[in-house]
């Protein structure tokens, strides 16, 4: 397996997700501010602000999920870390990455089912009538990406590293 071949697209798509999450967060803020202003000053609130905020919040969280997972950034208690030898540490990294990967895969599967349900009922938001299923499909897909990244971390734990490090090291040379 040659990590270099994958590092460039991985890094680029990671950066793309970063920008998407950042822009969505900014839009959430801007929308709420404009909505508040319009309501207070012109008594003309943006009727769809509520549902748009909900969708953006969802997407910020799920765009962040693969990014956090790739850098093993989920909050951990590192109480015994110092006591472990390198081999034990790496082995425990391997097991933990696999557990996280399976959990995220199950989550992706369940969200996919949810999206299918929504598509079947034709669920939409109440004001703009935006179809909800595509949003949920995106959630499921991003959870699946996170699951794959954790699996990649597990494989890299055998070699000693994380997916994010590998991507950065690989692209440094190209």
């Amino acid at each position, binding site marked *: 397996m040659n990590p270099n071949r994958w590092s460039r697209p991985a890094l680029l798509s990671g950066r793309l997700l*970063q*920008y998407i*999450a*950042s*822009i*969505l*967060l*900014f839009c*959430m*803020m*801007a929308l*709420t*501010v404009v*909505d*508040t202003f319009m309501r*207070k000053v012109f008594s003309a609130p943006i009727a769809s602000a*509520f549902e748009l*905020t*909900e*969708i953006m*919040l*969802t997407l*910020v*969280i*799920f*765009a*962040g*999920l693969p*990014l*956090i997972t790739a850098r093993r*950034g*989920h*909050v*951990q*208690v*590192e*109480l*015994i*870390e110092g006591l472990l030898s390198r081999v034990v540490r790496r082995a*425990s990294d391997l097991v*933990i990455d696999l*557990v*996280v990967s399976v*959990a995220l895969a*199950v*989550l992706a599967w*369940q*969200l996919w*089912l*949810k999206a299918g349900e929504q598509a079947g009922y034709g669920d939409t938001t109440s004001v703009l009538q935006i179809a909800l299923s595509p949003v*949920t499909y995106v*959630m499921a897909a991003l959870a699946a990406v996170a699951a794959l990244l954790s699996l990649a971390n597990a494989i890299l734990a055998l070699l000693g590293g994380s997916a994010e490090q590998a991507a950065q090291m690989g692209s440094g040379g190209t």
Partner: protein
Amino acid sequence: MITALIAFGIMLALIFLRVPIAFAMGLVGFFGFAYILDNFGAALGMVRAVTYETGSDYNLSIVPMFILMGNLVSQSGMSRELYRAAYSFLGHRSGGLAMSTVVACGGFSAICGSSLATAATMSKVAMPEMKKYGYDPSLAAGSIAAGGTLGILIPPSVILVIYGILTEQNIAALFAAGILPGVLGVLLYMAAVRFTTWRNPAAGPPGEKTPWGERGKALLGVWGVLLLFVLVLGAIYTGYATPTESAAVGAFGALVLSLLRRSLTWRSFLDVLYESAATTAMLFVILIGALIFANFINMTGMAQQLTSFALSLEMAPIFVIFFLVLVYLVLGCVLESLSMILLTVPVFYPLVDGLGYDLIWFGIMVVVVTEISLITPPVGLNVFVLRSVMPEIGTGTIFRGVTPFWAVDIIRLAIIILVPGLSLWLPQLFYG
């Protein structure tokens, strides 16, 4: 009850074995739920519902807004003016720079809802100054680590928001309740600095005295902080805007101030946005895991059994509170703050409510205990934040410096428990 206790045990064991906290809670919650109902399909459905609904809950959109606001003010440089203003009044006293640090931390907490961000930001301003005057590194680091904990008590506060959502309490009332205990915290921390320099004057030599004209100028320099605080809290208290709207306006205000001060480049703005988004995602993953766990714990009936057990003991309810505090102090040694609150509050608040206590008051108590956990070894997160900013100072040195602050925190906790009016006076004034 037994099932719930075993589940708690397994979960804590997984956390110790370095399983990410969110996943430890989520997995135990999922399997526990499936075990009680003997039905994996129902447990999967629960996980699906919790994940979907938490991720798209409008009320929770207040959390990323306060995170964004905190990160924006952190890079705005306003912490420098706060420190200068505090220094101009306190700097010439013995231990004055450490006292200024504590006061500036308190001021910064009024525009930042996170303790870690407060500690990290203030350390960049206060540490070089204290170094220049030859402060004992343990006093210098201790005052920043302790002062930083005020971030989650003095409003706005991300932790109080989450407590309010969990217990269905009024967030504005919770914010009001945090103010006086926060001020008390500043005063007691100043006393702790005083005590340290009384025992060893060399630990905190005085700085230069500032003339009154300069003091006035320095005080005027904090207008940005004051404006943001009044904007956000004023909008919440007058009921002019909902807390969520106020949080977004606060983030926007922080952005405008940063632009006016020219402290923001495109690069740093993108960094702030991304860091805020990543922190948001991280918090929500923990939140989802904790809610899955809470759904399982609710099925076990642990909260009700705990309440009836406590009532059957027929002892003064205050002893139950003391016992809970003890549980928190022990858990605080090993758990990260948000997870601790998410794990314990759903179990404890029906009990506290059943004993006839005010849940606003309990919220303040929980936050103060959490503040203490932030500086308690071995997992004092604020101490680790300081370490990452200043690797040259040892963890042991910081923990040693934190000790007097930890001691006055225990005094403050006792005062808050024994004098509920300290927390409840302001909310009652505002909301009757």
